[in-house]
């Protein structure tokens, strides 16, 4: 049993030997796995801007005087806004994303949300991740996408979450999605050295147990997945050399790992990364500008890395946040939980531009609790990604039909 070495502290001197005959390594050495026409090689990188990203200071309505009236302390000065047109522009920290926008690689969908908005982080996050605003389901929309596509059951990396804990969006009934906060962390401590895989495999396969359990086979399968994937992943991605300089912060490291995974031909269809917290009730400007600058810089590096490896047409970035924030600033130079907000689609396959209705700031006076009302259902964005990017009919995953947006080439 290979775990013994760790326990005895005899790891030093034992060379790590890749095993090219390993069934899993063989499966992955094959060409990218077959999928639906046009989509077989594509990957979605979904970025959760958790905490509730203030849409109005992200995609700034600098042409609207009401914005400056309602946010005397918080408004981004007209001169600082990275103007897109006479009406809106980007937060000054988002220079890299503005550069990609100017190249036609960024679609901004304004006013995205859902009916009867919930102002709880927890519930609204759940709604965005499960795509079920009107019921409680335990699977995420990408989890259901994995379950519905029968491709590559042997592939342990169809979905990868770059996080400590598996987010709900990746939770599935039939697909094991690893949560990997870093290559170093995705590792069984006891398996740091590996000299007797066969002995372990023999032990793990030995089912001569004095009981039956409806879960025994499942436990064995997951134990085997965990062992193989944690052992193989570092080797499978080892050949990837990043060709961009990522910022040395959380989102930079996460996107660097995402680029490494999607660039290593693992057959990965979706990667989750997260960045935050955008919950800016107090002193918003400093916090949010900083977070958006980090995000923008990391996405800029990520995109350059994709281009350098010829992957930019294979990869689509989609951001989301559980809600936007109140139109009017609060008394603490911050904003409280709101409703609709803009989201970004970025990639070589994107039709750049501004989509959806511009936010109507008059709502601060006329009701809707002073929030930006949603004008595009978030499930329309998901339906677009499923149908036009992942090549999958969205009805089954989303439990209904939603119009798609012309944001993808």
């Amino acid at each position, binding site marked *: 049993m290979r775990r013994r070495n760790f326990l005895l502290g005899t790891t030093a001197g034992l060379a790590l030997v890749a095993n090219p005959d390993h069934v899993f390594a063989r499966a992955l050495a094959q060409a990218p796995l077959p999928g639906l026409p046009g989509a077989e090689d594509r990957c979605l990188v979904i970025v959760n801007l958790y905490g509730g990203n203030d849409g109005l200071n992200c995609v700034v309505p600098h042409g609207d005087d009401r914005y400056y009236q309602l946010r005397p302390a918080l408004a981004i000065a007209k001169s600082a806004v990275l103007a897109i047109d006479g009406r809106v522009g980007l937060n000054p920290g988002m220079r890299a994303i503005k550069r990609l926008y100017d190249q036609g690689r960024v679609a901004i969908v304004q006013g995205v949300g859902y009916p009867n908005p919930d102002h709880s982080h927890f519930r609204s996050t759940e709604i965005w991740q499960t795509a079920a605003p009107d019921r409680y389901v335990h699977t995420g929309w990408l989890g259901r996408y994995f379950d519905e596509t029968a491709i590559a059951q042997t592939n342990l990396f169809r979905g990868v979450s770059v996080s400590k804990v598996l987010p709900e969006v990746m939770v599935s009934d039939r697909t094991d999605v690893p949560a990997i906060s870093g290559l170093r962390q995705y*590792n069984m401590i006891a398996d740091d050295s590996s000299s007797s895989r066969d002995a372990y495999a023999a032990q793990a396969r030995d089912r001569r147990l004095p009981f039956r359990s409806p879960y025994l086979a499942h436990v064995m399968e997951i134990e085997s997945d965990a062992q193989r994937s944690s052992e193989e992943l570092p080797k499978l991605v080892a050949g990837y050399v990043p060709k961009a300089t990522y910022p040395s912060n959380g989102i930079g490291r996460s996107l660097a790992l995402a680029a490494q995974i999607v660039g290593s031909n693992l057959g990965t269809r979706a990667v989750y990364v997260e960045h935050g917290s955008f919950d800016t009730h107090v002193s918003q400007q400093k916090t949010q500008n900083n977070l958006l600058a980090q995000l923008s810089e990391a996405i800029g590096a990520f995109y350059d890395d994709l281009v350098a490896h010829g992957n930019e047409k294979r990869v689509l970035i989609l951001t989301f946040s559980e809600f936007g924030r109140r139109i009017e600033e609060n008394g603490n130079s911050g904003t409280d939980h709101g409703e609709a907000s803009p989201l970004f689609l970025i990639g070589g396959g994107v039709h750049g531009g501004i989509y959806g209705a511009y936010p109507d700031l008059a709502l601060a006076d006329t009701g809707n609790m002073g929030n930006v009302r949603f004008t595009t259902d978030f499930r329309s964005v998901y339906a677009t990604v499923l149908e036009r990017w992942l090549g999958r009919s969205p009805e089954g995953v989303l439990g209904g039909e939603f119009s798609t947006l012309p944001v993808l080439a």
Partner: protein
Amino acid sequence: MAAHTVVDVGGMARPSGQLDAAAALRPHAGLLGVRAAAHLLRRAGFGGTPDEIARFAVMTAADAAASLVRMPPANAVAPPPELTAVALGRPANRNIIRDVQLWWLGRMLTTPAPLQEKMTLYFHGHFTSRATPRFPWITYNQNALLRRYALGNLRELTRDVSKDAAMLIYLDGNVNVAAHPNENYARELMELFTLGVDEYTEDDVRESARAWTGWRVDRRDDSVSFNPALHDAGIKQFLGRRGDFDGDQIVDIIFEQPQCARFFAGGLLNWFVYNDPEPPLVESVAQLLRKHDFELSPVVEAILRSEVFHSDRAYRALVKSPVEFVVGSYKTLGLGAMDIGVIDALQQMGQRLFFPPTVAGWPGGANWLTSGTMIARQNFLSRLLNSQTANGSSWLGNLSLHPTTAAQRVAQNVLQDDVAPAALHEIDAFLSGTGSAALAELSVENFQQRSSGAVYLAMATPAYQLN
């Protein structure tokens, strides 16, 4: 053995084989023995030390169940000291919630009445609320409420938890007022807490929401009060009844529905016996609940001594939750206190106490296990067994220096011999130093490290993931 696993869409799998419905709730006869005693202690609590298992092994199922349902009054439990240092309602250090988590895990490990904590954990996943870290007392108070009703009356618990501050905040009862009814709680009360979907209409939800109006939480001191001015005292039409109902009466009407007893019966069977229990078995337990007017103590006692509970079909038929896995490991080793490190480990395994993933609680079953959570489980074991903590084990230091004897003792204490021959052979070989790596023989010098390594090997086997 042929693969017989069909994990259904919800990740909950029923054991194969036939239920003998007529005999299912009859008391199981004879002395328990080690395996059945360990099974009972895992289900009714968080496992047993070898000594505790030995003590239960010579009891009958009926005597063992009777002893487990005897529990001290919950008001004898003192709150965590970190919390008593904080003034009521005062926004506190957010990390205090970790102290409350650790305190509860410690109770699970050391309480003389583990069933009290097991039922509290059950209700925590059933009547879920999510903590607001700035108001830790609200979370603690709900925990104490659930503990008071651990084996109490389900109807009374449902009435009281409906007016609990954590619940009022979590499901918006706090903002449910006559002028603007909020249906959140009214819906979950029926859908997730008492009846299940399709057992009521949207009109019932609306009418129930009206009946629940007027309850308010005062954030200054966490107190709950009823404000008649915010209450809708009008006539409501609810589940076929008509009257100026308040919340308590809504609960009473819900508990008159035949489905209500079935709903709780299904929950208890899923928790204690096996997942996806057959409808006839659910109905038998539902009848018991009705017979005892929803008093839990006699019903849980009947389940714990029953034939179906002690059947092969129920044995190791559940997946250990992370809390069961972690507390059970400390228990198995005979350790006296939890370490703060388990809080992060539990989160990586997918269970943060007081932060259930949804209002439906933790989905359980196969949903607990992904490669990520499995790595977290195995790494937790690695860290525990390589730590000073493991040296505090009540029995590890007394293992024989004879490798085969020691290996058998480890397999017995950790797995009650639910170990495949190849795995037992590996443990033996590991202890004797004859495995695939060249090791020294077991000796006084390497004893401590080698014995905790042997426990790791036993805990890393598939059977240990099963409850």
